[in-house]
């Protein structure tokens, strides 16, 4: 164990400082300590972004001329939907890294991301439904956008069920990574669904960067809320990863030391 560690650090030092830094970040005790120090700061930033975004979105932003006040659901619906896809990308990429390089931390990040991503997907579907009822007259339609987002939720739930069903964490991580990578095909389908198929769902408003069809006073709070959701992901991911690291390293010497110290 200690021999292979020395080997590792020697060869990584020879390969350059970037590689060494990467290896260091990937070491569980180092990441545990670093994330513990960073967590409160990200938490404060997250709270500030939410405060600013909510004030801008619920109070300052004007009423929509077509949808009245109901459009204010956009400030949680769109960030949740963006994050549902972003977290899935993280899940697939870290899963892939774990699969190829057997990097433990990447596996832990993938495992910890799944329930967070699932909850964003759930929120995107729920808030969309609550927005759809007054605007479209229905809670749900089986159109491409809504159905592919529902499939995303099932991909997350399938991943989590797989993790729970396989006792050995490393085997579970590998099996989950394959599932996550296959499921990536769903992401472009979600994104382009509103262009490829006719749908009740409105087309993209923000990502048409040449000419976003949304007023600045509505756009700024939306971007603030998107930032807040991203920070929320960082905070809850770090919190989850710390728990996972502690659990899987419970027999390691550094954890025993930590228990004595604190």
């Amino acid at each position, binding site marked *: 164990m200690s021999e292979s560690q020395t080997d590792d650090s020697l060869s990584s030092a020879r390969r350059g400082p970037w590689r060494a830094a990467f290896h260091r970040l990937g070491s569980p005790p180092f990441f545990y300590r670093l994330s513990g120090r960073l967590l409160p700061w990200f938490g404060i930033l997250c709270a500030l972004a939410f405060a600013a975004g909510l004030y801008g979105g*619920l*109070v300052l932003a004007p*009423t929509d001329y077509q949808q*009245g*006040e*109901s459009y*204010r*659901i956009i400030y*949680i*619906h769109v960030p*949740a939907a963006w994050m549902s896809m972003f977290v899935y990308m993280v899940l697939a990429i870290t899963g892939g890294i774990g699969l190829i390089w057997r990097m433990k931390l990447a596996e832990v990040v993938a495992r910890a991301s799944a*329930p*967070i991503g699932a*909850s964003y997907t*759930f*929120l995107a579907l*729920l*808030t969309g439904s*609550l*927005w759809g*009822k*007054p605007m479209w007259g229905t809670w749900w339609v089986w159109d491409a956008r809504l159905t592919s987002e529902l499939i995303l939720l099932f991909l997350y739930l399938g991943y989590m069920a797989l993790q729970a069903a396989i006792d050995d964490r490393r085997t579970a991580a590998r099996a989950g990574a394959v599932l996550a990578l296959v499921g990536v095909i769903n992401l472009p389908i979600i994104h382009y669904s509103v262009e490829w198929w006719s749908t009740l769902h409105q087309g993209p408003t923000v990502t048409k960067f040449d000419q976003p069809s949304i007023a600045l006073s509505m756009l700024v709070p939306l971007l603030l809320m998107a930032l807040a959701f991203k920070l*929320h992901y960082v*905070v*809850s991911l770090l*919190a*989850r990863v*710390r*728990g996972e690291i*502690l*659990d899987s390293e*419970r027999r390691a010497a550094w*954890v*025993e030391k930590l*228990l*004595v110290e*604190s």
Partner: protein
Amino acid sequence: MAEFLAMGGYAWYVWPAYGVTAIVLIANLLLPLRHRRHLLRQLRTIARQRTHNGRP
């Protein structure tokens, strides 16, 4: 204030959306913190028992 809460007649759609979102987001922060605290307590108890039994 009443006008703000009424959300132009859409209160029954807007506020549940915000309410459930708040609950889910906060739960996502609290559950892992609680899990870690729980785990630390459990590991500490195991470590104490081991020293009592005289094993290193």
